[in-house]
């Protein structure tokens, strides 16, 4: 690829900003600096990144491409840097710099993946993303979040290794590291391996359990960042290299409905939103699988809208958690008098997600459903419409009703603490809400950014009528079955049961049988080994001292002195061995790639 000239990578702005942050003083200047950094990154993406290829660097045998800007990467970079501003404003009250630093490195990682032109750069940035985002979980500082963070790290390390295996195999087969569309009609083994690597990040079942596990345990501000970047970056990578991979259609529809079922059962509001992310990702994965121009446009548009409305919903539920310290429906209810503005923002996000007219989801989700119908995949069209009805059910009825209306299950103390959150959180929610309504009401804003020229019109009488009928009838069904929607203080088991139990099994194995064997060996050694050994050594010691040293005076002491010298030199030797093996490892990798 040819370099199109000088260009500043937006991730550099965020990383430099993150590193400078601890050096900036306190007060208003610091707040201004915190807002300025993501704004600069956004302006860089928006104004100073024309289409082309930038940042091409020769590294050993490969040309690494840090900046490939085309219609597809542009729209994702745009919405991600926009969400970074919103998330940063939402976190402005945080006193701990480290949280902001982790968040900016995380966004920098996502932008790096979006703009990467080859697998090596992509891998580098996706590892930055995984390792910085885990701190957003740990900064909640509860024992649960520590464990969750480690599980998250393990799952993403696994995903990263699978991706690495996939693109190394591809490199061996084709000699190509460039990150471009794969041949999905004649998939090789590496095509599937790369797909699985991306599926982990996109939370496609059965590799999805990390998502509800993590997002519900992350810190209030951390979750706002996390919900936007990892999974949508994965959607971008799927669009980039696996558009038209038909098996993804099946995964997508399963995902959309799986998320709905779990969201209906869920008792924790942020975990409910995490399930809904999975469900909404199902639409996008499905769009990638269909792979037509309309479907790809739909997947991009829905990812764009999704980042903003899901961010808004996480900010809303985060506000409730921040103010009351509660996130479970069994501890909430009847909050509308205390947090009316938060309720309004949550409703804007909910109506956007449920795809009602004039809200963002309406103009984006329908593109994917229409693409399914146009390809005569009727089960996809109806399956996704079912998921839409379910979405309305849990996000527009269940979530606001159980948090803000109905009889309150909140304690007196919770009720007293409840109030609309600080101004910066409200401002961030207002910006998010503005974009949700703006995208839904003024369609050219989003449609003109899409990778393919758009011919789809969401505002046909038939589409509006269909949507309103489904929504109204679902609301009626909810009303009649409202007793079944009452929350219960329980958790839902999911596929993470297997690895959590496997981990526990390993722990048990180490603790019970292995430790028992170890104890026995110790006992046996003491009885059989140690006693005779002591006798023998005493004899040799006597023999050495009296017989040998008596004969060759001082030689034993001489040997001891020499032993000390050898020991010291061995320390040095070990260091040399370490360096030799490290260099050997690098050379081996270089040899494999050469």
């Amino acid at each position: 690829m040819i370099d199109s000239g000088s260009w500043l990578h937006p991730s550099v702005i965020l990383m430099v900003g993150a590193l400078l942050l601890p050096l900036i003083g306190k007060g208003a200047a610091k707040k201004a600096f915190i807002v300025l950094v993501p704004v600069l990154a956004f302006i860089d993406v928006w104004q100073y990144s024309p289409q082309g290829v930038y940042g091409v660097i020769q590294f050993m045998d490969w040309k690494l491409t840090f900046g490939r800007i085309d219609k597809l990467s542009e729209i994702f970079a745009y919405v991600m840097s926009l969400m970074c501003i919103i998330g940063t404003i939402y976190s402005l009250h945080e006193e701990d710099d480290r949280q902001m630093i982790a968040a900016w490195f995380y966004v920098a990682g996502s932008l790096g993946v979006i703009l990467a032109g080859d697998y090596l750069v992509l891998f580098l940035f996706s590892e930055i993303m995984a390792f910085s985002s885990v701190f957003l979980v740990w900064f909640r500082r509860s024992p649960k979040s520590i464990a969750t963070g480690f599980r998250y790290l393990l799952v993403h390390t696994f995903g990263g290794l699978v991706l690495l295996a996939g693109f190394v195999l591809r490199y061996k087969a084709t000699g190509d590291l460039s990150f471009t569309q794969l041949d999905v009609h004649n998939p090789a083994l590496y095509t599937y391996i790369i797909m699985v690597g991306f599926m982990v990040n996109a939370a496609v079942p059965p590799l999805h359990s990390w998502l509800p596990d993590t997002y519900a345990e992350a810190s209030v501000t951390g979750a706002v960042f996390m919900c936007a970047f990892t999974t949508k970056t994965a959607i971008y990578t799927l669009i980039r290299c696996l558009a038209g991979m038909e098996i993804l259609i099946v995964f997508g529809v399963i995902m959309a409905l799986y998320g709905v079922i779990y969201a209906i059962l869920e008792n924790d509001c942020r975990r409910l939103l995490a399930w809904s992310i999975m469900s909404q990702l199902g639409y996008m994965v499905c769009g990638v699988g269909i792979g037509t121009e309309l479907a790809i446009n739909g997947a991009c548009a829905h990812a764009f809208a999704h980042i903003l409305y899901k961010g808004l919903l996480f900010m809303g539920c985060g506000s409730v958690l921040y103010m009351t310290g509660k996130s479970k429906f069994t501890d909430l209810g009847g909050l509308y008098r205390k947090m009316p503005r938060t309720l309004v923002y949550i409703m804007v996000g909910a109506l956007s997600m449920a795809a009602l007219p004039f809200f963002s989801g309406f103009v984006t989700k329908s593109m994917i459903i229409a693409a399914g119908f146009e390809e005569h995949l009727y089960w996809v069209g109806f399956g996704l419409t079912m998921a839409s009805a379910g979405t309305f059910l849990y996000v527009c009825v269940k979530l606001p009703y159980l948090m803000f209306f109905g009889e309150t299950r909140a304690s007196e103390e919770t009720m007293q603490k409840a109030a609309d959150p600080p101004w910066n959180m409200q401002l961030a929610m207002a910006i998010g809400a503005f974009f949700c309504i703006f995208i839904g009401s003024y369609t050219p804003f989003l449609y003109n950014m899409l990778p393919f020229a758009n011919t789809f019109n969401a505002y046909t009488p038939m589409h509006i009528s269909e949507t309103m009928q489904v929504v109204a009838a679902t609301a009626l069904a909810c009303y009649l079955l409202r007793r079944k929607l009452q929350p219960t203080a329980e958790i839902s088991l999911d596929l993470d049961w297997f690895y959590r139990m496997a981990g526990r099994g390993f722990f048990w194995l180490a603790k019970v049988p292995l430790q028992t064997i170890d104890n026995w060996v110790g006992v046996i050694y003491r009885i059989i080994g140690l006693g005779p050994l002591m006798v023998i050594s005493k004899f040799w010691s006597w023999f050495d001292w009296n017989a040998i040293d008596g004969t060759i005076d001082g030689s034993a002491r001489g040997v001891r002195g020499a032993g000390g010298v050898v020991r010291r030199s061995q320390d040095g030797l070990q260091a040399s061995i370490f360096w030799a093996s490290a260099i050997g490892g690098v050379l081996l990798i270089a040899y494999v790639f050469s």
Partner: protein
Amino acid sequence: MIVEFLDYLRAHLRALSRLGIAFIVLLLCIDIFVIDKQHAHTAIQHFPGFWTIFGFVVGAGLIIVAKWFGRQGIRQKEDYYD
């Protein structure tokens, strides 16, 4: 202002539910008499009020299926993993 509005709505729940029913009927009428279904993709979409029936069946079905699914050992006590 928001609170007063919501209090007003809560004070008139009965009227609100009647309004909701009227809205569903209105949507049905529009679907049957007004909407041009020439571009519908499947024959079943031409059935009068198809999406209302679809929405009701799916909405009720999802709640019932989810609850049934939860009873199959999926819902556990909160300290299950501790």
